[in-house]
């Protein structure tokens, strides 16, 4: 699939004009909003959505949805009733009563931001036709937090940047693009740590630019980072070939033969192997397969895969087993 872009994501924040925002909402209002949105979504002919009330979901299922990036940790920890509608292909999710009444999110693998925007926009049009949106002529879509007002749009890419990280360029890159109104985050979004050399980059400004310009801006900066990462990989390969080959094959070896492995260690090793595939060092595995692993090795996903709850120690053993099976 894609050597640098792991996923592309669009998110739209929307609110209803006739209900208090979530910070001022009680459980009764929250329940009503959920029912109204559920009713509207059921009328949609184009997509088939499954609907989940968060508090009714078992702990493990919630964690699985977070690890699949279909819901945010904030939706789970919401004090009021919250819910989510997820389309059957698991590309689209509509979160209800997160920070805003509605968060429409579309996520695709690889470089697919245009398609994500088209889907999000279409669903937004549909919902707007049936629900009274909070919208102001001057300020656009009114959101709970002033950082989202205007378009309510966040366009983001999950980038795999092992070579730039290894060469120590990331600090400088982050400083520069932050000045250009781009935010850099870790694997699980705001406040999370960078693991496996995976960086999430997205626009910060939402007011005063049309949606297409905001997306084009993030795309343009992303393209430059992709180019730099590819150059960095070539540089590593031409100047430190034996070091890189050793690093990649060692990681591959551990993944193939380990009997006990934590998710953090697995992520680091998978990152090396992913880079190795894109450099043509490892030929017997595809990036597609590696990206499947990237998802499956997470704590809740492991338990979901084997269909039962496990202790952390048991998980580490089963994780190693699963990795061996997939790489074989």
């Amino acid at each position, binding site marked *: 699939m894609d050597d640098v872009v792991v996923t592309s994501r669009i998110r739209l924040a929307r609110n209803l004009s006739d209900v208090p925002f979530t910070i001022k909402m009680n459980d009764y209002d929250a329940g009503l909003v959920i029912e109204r949105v559920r009713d509207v979504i059921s009328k949609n002919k184009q997509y088939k959505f499954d609907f989940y009330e968060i508090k009714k979901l078992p702990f493990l299922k919630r964690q699985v949805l977070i690890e699949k990036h279909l819901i945010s940790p904030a939706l789970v920890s919401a004090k009021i009733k919250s819910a989510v509608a997820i389309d059957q292909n698991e590309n689209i999710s509509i979160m209800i009563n997160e920070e805003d009444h509605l968060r429409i999110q579309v996520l695709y693998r690889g470089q697919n931001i245009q398609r994500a925007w088209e889907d999000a926009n279409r669903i937004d049009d549909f919902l707007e036709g049936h629900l009274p949106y909070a919208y102001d002529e001057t300020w656009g879509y009114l959101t709970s937090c002033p950082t989202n007002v205007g378009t309510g749009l966040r366009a983001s890419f999950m980038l795999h940047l092992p070579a730039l990280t290894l060469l120590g360029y990331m600090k400088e890159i982050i400083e520069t693009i932050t000045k250009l109104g781009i935010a850099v985050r870790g694997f699980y979004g705001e406040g999370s740590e960078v693991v496996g050399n995976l960086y999430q980059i997205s626009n910060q400004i939402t007011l*005063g630019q049309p949606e297409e310009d905001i997306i084009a801006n993030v795309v343009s900066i992303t393209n430059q980072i992709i180019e730099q990462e590819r150059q960095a990989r070539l540089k590593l390969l031409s100047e430190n070939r034996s070091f890189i080959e050793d690093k990649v094959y060692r990681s591959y070896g551990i993944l193939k033969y380990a009997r006990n492995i934590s998710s953090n260690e697995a992520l680091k090793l998978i990152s090396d192997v992913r880079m190795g595939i894109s450099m043509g060092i490892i030929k017997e595995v595809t990036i597609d397969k590696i990206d499947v692993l990237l998802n499956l090795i997470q704590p809740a996903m492991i338990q979901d895969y084997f269909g039962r709850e496990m202790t952390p120690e048991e998980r580490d053993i089963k994780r190693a087993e699963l990795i061996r099976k997939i790489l074989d």
Partner: protein
Amino acid sequence: MMCENCGKRPATVHYTQIINGVKTEMHLCEVCAKQKGTIEFDAPFSVTNFLAGILEPAFGPQMIKPSFEMQITCRGCGMTFEEFKRSGRFGCAMCYNSFSEKLYPIFRRIHGNTKHVGKIPTKMGENIAIKREIDKLKIELNIAIKNEEFERAAEIRDKIRELEKKLSRE
């Protein structure tokens, strides 16, 4: 390492937050992490907390704040401006109207802008689209006058009048 919460079981859930280079760590056992609803820890460096800082006037809060300012209250949800500054969140759609005057400098600082130019919902769209078109034509009119292109200015003026008529009819 033992769980920071109960101190009885070994810590297996390690939660690290890094915001603007500041690292916060939590080490919990699975039971305590579950009770806490996983990731629901205090985030001292969250966007909201920084916003609260941005929302304070640059000279410090006590110096220039006349007492009546504290009492601006949203007609919709009863949120006070003070409350908004503290939480960094609006209470309802009407807050934007109630705090209107005070929002321009805030939005300018966050977004560098104070006017939405993006998507217009189709339901309420037509009028807004016409108003936007009028604004654009007015700028063109000024340019035409400045360049002494009077014929073109007259054309633009007629277009503006036509659109304004359309607006008042609705």
